[in-house]
């Protein structure tokens, strides 16, 4: 199929490219800054302000401080567990909920929806939740970071919207063929909602990756700490050290560079995962393929 590109089209395209490039440069800058800062010498960073075009006096001190810490591998290992198991559990629970709420003739739908929406606004707060987790025997176990966070109502609603967009005809022809609701969910709805599922994997996954508050409240055993909590501790203990340091130039002002190194250490794995999920965001992959 030949698409005729008008002159107007070409102008728009050029502007688009320019604009997006500009946007990319601007939004990329914070990340670049952090990368440069993390490889900078601590003293030079402490005395410079403004834009960084490259690392100031190359130094690996910050990264050394982070990786020297015995807790760091534990942090990675734990977070990998929380992300994989947690996200899997999230997707299952959220899909079930979204499916149920997207059924057209379900008597209880209204009530469940109201129940769900209500929780978006009202919650008991930290103390009852804490007591609950303790009461259920989940305190100081990995499950405290997985089960209480099973469903994000925000994500649930997004998924529900995506499920509702799937043409009823597909569902009905499946029902004619004798499929029950469970099969419909797994064989029709989920495959057709892959872009949304990919987004959910990203949202939940990143959520687990970045999580630290739940761990802080529910975990006492440091061996279960997720990466972010470990990094926080590294950062804070180094900053405190900065306060007390006395005429020992090598280790001074490290707090600043470590702050940036921890961000990179935490973000790098995400950067590597994203390209895998990106292919789900490519235009119009699924519906046409399935229909054909």
């Amino acid at each position, binding site marked *: 199929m030949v698409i005729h590109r008008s002159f107007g*089209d070409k102008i728009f395209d050029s502007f688009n490219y320019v604009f997006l490039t500009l946007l990319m440069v601007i939004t990329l800058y914070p990340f670049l*800054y952090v990368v440069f800062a993390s490889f900078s010498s601590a003293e030079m960073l402490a005395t410079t302000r403004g834009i960084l075009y490259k690392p100031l006096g190359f130094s690996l001190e910050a990264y050394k401080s982070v990786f020297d810490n015995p807790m760091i591998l534990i942090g990675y290992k734990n977070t990998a567990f929380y992300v994989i198991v947690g996200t899997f559990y999230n997707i299952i629970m959220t899909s079930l909920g979204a499916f149920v709420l997207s059924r057209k*003739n379900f008597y209880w739908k209204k009530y*469940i929806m109201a*129940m769900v929406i209500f929780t978006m606004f009202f919650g008991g707060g930290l103390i009852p939740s804490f007591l609950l987790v303790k009461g259920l025997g989940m305190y100081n176990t990995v499950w405290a970071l997985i089960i209480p966070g099973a469903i994000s109502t925000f994500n649930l609603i997004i998924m529900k919207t995506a499920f509702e967009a799937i043409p009823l005809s597909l569902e009905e022809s499946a029902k004619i063929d004798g499929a029950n609701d469970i099969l419909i969910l797994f064989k029709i709805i989920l495959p057709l909602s892959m872009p949304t599922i990919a987004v959910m994997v990203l949202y939940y996954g990143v959520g687990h990756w970045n999580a630290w508050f739940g761990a802080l409240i529910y975990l006492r055993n440091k061996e279960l700490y997720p990466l972010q909590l470990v990094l926080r501790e590294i950062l804070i203990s180094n900053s405190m050290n900065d306060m007390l340091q006395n005429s020992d130039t090598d280790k001074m002002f490290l707090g600043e560079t470590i702050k940036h190194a921890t*961000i990179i250490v935490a973000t790098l794995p995400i950067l590597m995962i994203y390209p895998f999920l990106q292919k789900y965001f490519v235009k119009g992959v699924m519906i046409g393929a399935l229909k054909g």
Partner: protein
Amino acid sequence: MDASLNKNVNYSTKKKKKSLGETIKADYKQNKFVILMALPVVIWYIVFHYAPLYGITIAFKNYSPMKGIMGSSWVGIKFFKEFFNSYYAWRVIRNTFVINIYQLVCGFPAPIILAVLLNEIKNNRFKKTVQTLTYLPHFISLVVICGMLVDFSSKDGLFNTVLATFGWNPTNLLLKPEYFRGLYVGSGIWQGIGWGSIIYLAALSGIDTEQYEAATIDGANRWKQFVNVTLPGIAPTIVILLIMQIGRLMSEGADKIILLYNANTYETADIISSFVYRKGLVDSNFSYSTAVGLFNSVVNMTLLITANKISRKVNETSLW
């Protein structure tokens, strides 16, 4: 003929009123599996959201950790009164609202526009690159972003240097109440536009390519295709997210505000949560902050319900 379709016809033509029991029984027959699938979800909500709900009563009690929530004494709306009677109550409520409206008007469309523009790019490698790089700032911690912002806004910082070439008189931007909202919302867009566009990109990729082909055959140009195929395709996503954003109009975290504001910008920058935070520094009162939070929630819920009602009337998309 398909049994379920039959049932539907049954219900819509029979005019007699069914008893509740009959409706439920009939629904069960039709939706057996649906109910089964709903069970774990409902149980989860009850256990983890409804069981702890009694914690709300903290807002109406004089909470003491040792007495526990049940043992603390009732004080009714004392803390609500305290909040509303404070000199700055209306100012912080107004600021919370206004900043959120700014974010709604400027911040909400931004990721949508990015997603749509990206969608128009034919070069896949460029598209993927932009996609991958623009979401990165989302992962930079707020402390670092605000540190940059403070640096850029200072008298000899980046913003002033650039503006000076247009004849601007350099001045510390964060000291001016009139610029605070712009900086606050603008930096939010800077940090979040890429990440926020992901959901819209997913929605865009869910649009049936056949529709575009059909439109081209009908002779529609790019703009017409955008209006008639693309927009309707992502409209449900936009509407849902918009409604949920409206349901957050009274909330705003204090973290970023505290990192950026100062006494000179309290006028526009001090919001409910930062005000409550400062009060908490003098006397940490769980009940007080819970009460204020409850007030926020009630307003938010009202807004959401209203937005949803309006949306339902105007188009078919709504939360329920």
